[in-house]
């Protein structure tokens, strides 16, 4: 990957990496560190990574870093600085706002916290990032059947969480 390609990748996917880290870690400072470290690692390995596959490489690397960090941060459960923070959902929302997609997003982010880190990663990598099943299974080192079962359970749990919050289709 050339320097120009690296710059394009950073500008194009840097925020996706950061978003994944935010949703995984629930700590924006740590998420920024993960995003930076991931991008610096890409620079280090730029000779081995093609631009076309950079996004998957970045997400895999970011995910591994998130897992490492989440072990260290296991006692921290708050996002300290975010109006769009995952834990800031309005406890008594106006029903009219429930149809608002941004509120749905807030509720979903909040519901994601109820998933285990592995299941959260499964949902994010599949439903948000759109990675293939085989790729996710390889990244998370789990069998394909286990991955699909985890995904089904996680969808159901998120649906129940939204229904409990009053978000209905």
């Amino acid at each position: 990957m050339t320097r120009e390609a690296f710059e394009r990748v950073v500008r194009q996917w840097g925020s996706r990496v950061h978003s994944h880290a935010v949703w995984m870690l629930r700590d924006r400072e740590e998420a920024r560190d993960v995003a930076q470290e991931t991008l610096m690692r890409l620079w280090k390995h730029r000779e081995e990574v093609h631009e076309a596959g950079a996004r998957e490489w970045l997400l895999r690397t970011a995910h591994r870093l998130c897992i490492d960090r989440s072990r260290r941060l296991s006692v921290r459960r708050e996002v300290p600085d975010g109006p769009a923070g995952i834990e800031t959902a309005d406890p008594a929302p106006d029903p009219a706002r429930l149809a608002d997609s941004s509120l749905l997003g807030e509720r979903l982010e909040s519901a994601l916290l109820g998933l285990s880190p592995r299941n959260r990663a499964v949902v994010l990598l599949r439903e948000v990032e759109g990675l293939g099943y085989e790729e996710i299974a390889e990244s998370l080192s789990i069998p394909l059947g286990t991955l699909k079962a985890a995904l089904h359970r996680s969808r159901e749990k998120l649906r129940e969480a939204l229904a409990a919050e009053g978000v209905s289709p």
Partner: protein
Amino acid sequence: MTDRCGTARDLAQRRLDGERDPAAEAALNSHLAICPSCREIVAGLETVREGLRALPERPLPGVFLEDILDRTVRRERERVRAAVWAAWATAAAAATIVLSLILIRPGPPEAPAGDELARARREAGIALSLAAGAMREAERTARDRVIAERVAPALHRVPVRWSAFAASRKP
């Protein structure tokens, strides 16, 4: 929830996974047509999927992106640029030295004219005569100094000793 509800929800999950089986699709649709509970659940699962796909991105602040580019691409560019400049400077210095050696190299000496040669010989003779005179003068001065510093005091002491000897011989 009946067994058919369980099967339908499983089929709905598979449909969300991207599996496309016309027979399973038909079975799911016919069940949803008669089961409001499953219809609501499947709609809820689809809402979850749509909501996840529409999650707003959390942009990495521009200052962080720029910092990364500073530490990687731009630093590398500066390094390459500096290396190129150093190479050019070295080449320019080498070229300057080579050109200087070519342009400043002295040519063969010119042959002197006949009168210049005669004059040079005369002047050389005068210089040699002066040098010989100076040598003689220096030799004389040195000899005088030796006499003055060593012999004269010795001579000065002789009369004293002689006087003393003479005095001792007096009755």
